[in-house]
């Protein structure tokens, strides 16, 4: 693994054609996993650069307004910070657009959800989501997250209640009023889980969590400082 960074530097100097050639070569070498991998990554990021240069992504399913709203949601769900970029930078809107364009059920979840969100924003703040102020946008998301938490608590309690032998004939009683935000909570959960997936499966996200694997080593070792750290922070510290 020690030569990984050197390999990377070399590869950055290569043209795309060179990289492709090295892939072809590496495939013929049984133990060439590492080289093949680095080269493949390089080609991938080059292709992405080219895509950026060639102009903006053209949404397959969403209209411009919907796509912009998804982009704003992505920035709010996983924002840029000192460590890494946002879920928007990581391609979350494109990821959602692609999959939703292939699946009517998913498309309905998103077009319907985005429309619900705008309607709710107009009611509360007289502006659709993307045009509202940042604090209004986060106020809306805070409401959804709170409603989600309340729903979850109620569900847990409700189940315990229903599970009790003594109260089973009360099973159908709606003792808590359902939240008006229900459709928004369901939509936000979809938007969030797909945004989070898009972010953490991107190069940006994988680097953000500092994943160190997917390599090839001849001997597997666990660094001593890691073991010491874990033991010192555990109930087994001597």
């Amino acid at each position, binding site marked *: 693994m020690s030569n990984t960074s050197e390999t990377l530097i070399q590869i950055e100097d290569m043209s795309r054609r060179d990289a492709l050639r090295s892939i072809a070569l590496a495939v013929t070498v049984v133990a060439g996993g590492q080289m093949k991998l680095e080269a493949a990554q390089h080609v991938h990021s080059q292709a992405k650069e080219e895509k950026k240069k060639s102009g903006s992504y053209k949404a397959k399913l969403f209209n411009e307004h919907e796509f912009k709203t998804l982009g704003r949601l992505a920035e709010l769900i996983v924002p840029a910070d000192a460590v890494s970029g946002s879920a928007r930078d990581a391609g979350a809107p494109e990821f959602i657009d692609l999959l939703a364009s292939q699946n009517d059920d998913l498309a309905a979840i998103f077009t319907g959800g985005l429309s619900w969100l705008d309607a709710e924003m107009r009611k509360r703040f007289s502006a659709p989501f993307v045009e509202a102020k940042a604090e209004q946008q986060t106020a809306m998301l805070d409401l959804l997250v709170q409603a989600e938490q309340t729903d979850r608590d109620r569900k847990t309690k409700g*189940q315990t209640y229903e599970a009790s032998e003594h109260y089973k004939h009360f099973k159908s009683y709606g003792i808590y009023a359902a939240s008006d935000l229900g459709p928004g909570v369901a939509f936000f959960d979809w938007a969030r889980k797909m945004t*989070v997936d898009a972010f953490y499966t991107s190069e940006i996200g994988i680097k953000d*969590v500092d994943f160190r694997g997917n390599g090839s080593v001849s001997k597997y070792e666990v660094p001593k400082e890691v073991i010491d750290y874990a033991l010192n922070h*555990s109930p087994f510290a001597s």
Partner: protein
Amino acid sequence: MAQVRRSPEEHEVVVVGSGAGGGSAVQVLTEKGIQVTLLEAGPMLDPAKEFKEHMWPYEVDHRGAEEGGAAYFGKGKSFGYFTTSSGGWQLEGEPYTVGEGSEFLWFRSRIIGGRTNHYGRMSFRFSDYDFKPYDRDGLGTNWPISYQDLAPYYDKAEAFIGVTGSKEGIRSAPDGVFQDPPPPKAHEILIKKACDRIGIPCIPNRRAVITRELNGRPPCHYCGQCGRGCLTASNYASSQVQIFPAMKTGKLKVIDMAMAREVLTDGNGKVVGVSYIDKRTRAEERIRCRAVILAASACESARILLNSKSKHFPHGLANGSGVVGRFLMDTVGFGLSGQVPALEGLPHYDTDGFGGAHLYMPWWLWEKHNEVGFPRGYHIEIGGGYGMPGIGSFHRQARKYGYGKNLKEGVRKEYGTTVGFAGRGEMIPNNHSYCEIDPKVVDKWGIPVLRFHFKWTDYEWKQARHMERTFAEIIETMGGKVLGLSAAERESSGISVPGTIIHEVGTARMGNDPRTSAVNGFCQAHEAKNLFVCDGGPFVSNPDKNPTLTINALSWRSCDYLAEEMRKGHV
């Protein structure tokens, strides 16, 4: 039956199925110079094309969620897009049915190598007491063979496929022929410390992965992606380790896309060949041979036997006892995870390892079944570490932390701090758990399908509750907090759905008495000397040791015996 072709060629041995049992049969028989014809219901495997080893999720535009986000709707590939599992819980056009009041899921792979291409590769020997369960607790039935009968074949199988491990001298987990295991990861060291405190043995894992070169196979390169298929064949899969090498000897003929319909017998009740459907043409083909080995998986082999009806065998072949399809067992599964603060802030490192945990816990209370209140044991498998981020990796944290800065920091803080425990326990065979031919349904090849019936009993439920208490104790001893199920939800998921551990065995059990068993101790049918069942079918019990290694060893032993019987002219 419009199109039935009879092959003029006389084959020596026909093996049906290419997984652990079929692969071992192919290896052992071709090594002895015997000509083998292998039938596989799926296509040939092309590792270079199929295996997604080392791929990053961003190398595909759906990132692993598959077209239309199928994975979000539970319709993605079993065990994830990047695994090499071919097949699944439901196969297009090849249904099975489940009897009223039962629940059962049946995982089938249709490809050369079968389920060994993606399985967990846990490789545990049965213990001496596992072969005589009835003698210990009066439940189930004894095997007609003993540990001493199988031990030499465990040695051969381990030496050939390559299994890691260490000499421990623990009765429930007999030592074997081992390659060196990799060292434990940080979270595993904490788990071991907790187990030491509680009194549970926690030892190097025994997996079919090689850590040094073996028969030209390079050692593991520790990418942790065994489930994706290994391009260097550094783990065991019958395809790469047994079948591909056998193909090079010229002794093996592989017929893929061949769906076995039945074993053919002549007017005297002698097994003479196999009939199968060529999936490419939908024509029925018949091949003649000297001996047949069924290794299509326990239930699929039972199905073939039950469908092989004739004047001599009105209830199906090898089924004069009526036991074919009966005594179906799966493994008891229960899992619990915990979040461990001691792992927060740990300097990140590569936790991929050799694909699976580096430690495991064998059963430790074999002398104390009266105290624990259930008759059979379980072992514990471990999860944890910094897994490659994928679809769904951080949904729990996303819901916990809401959105924004909190979410991003929460994911960083909790990533890699979760440990998981999976119990794998022995069930007792019972009269409610079996498969039979559904009298009304055929698959798209016209072959009558299986109908499953299954019930866990109190023995299994009690064992699962013991797993739960034990795992919680380990997590808490590490200073962690149990995650997951609320009390109400637990009721429905406190034990695995039958079939889902994919250890189904027992449907053509072995025994000395032809009135109560389908095959003898060499997996040879009582009713036909030239018919063998070399998969999980002959298992008399299903100890907590994952079945694959024992299938390898039993198949090897049966084929040694078959070759000798052929040489003597008895078969």
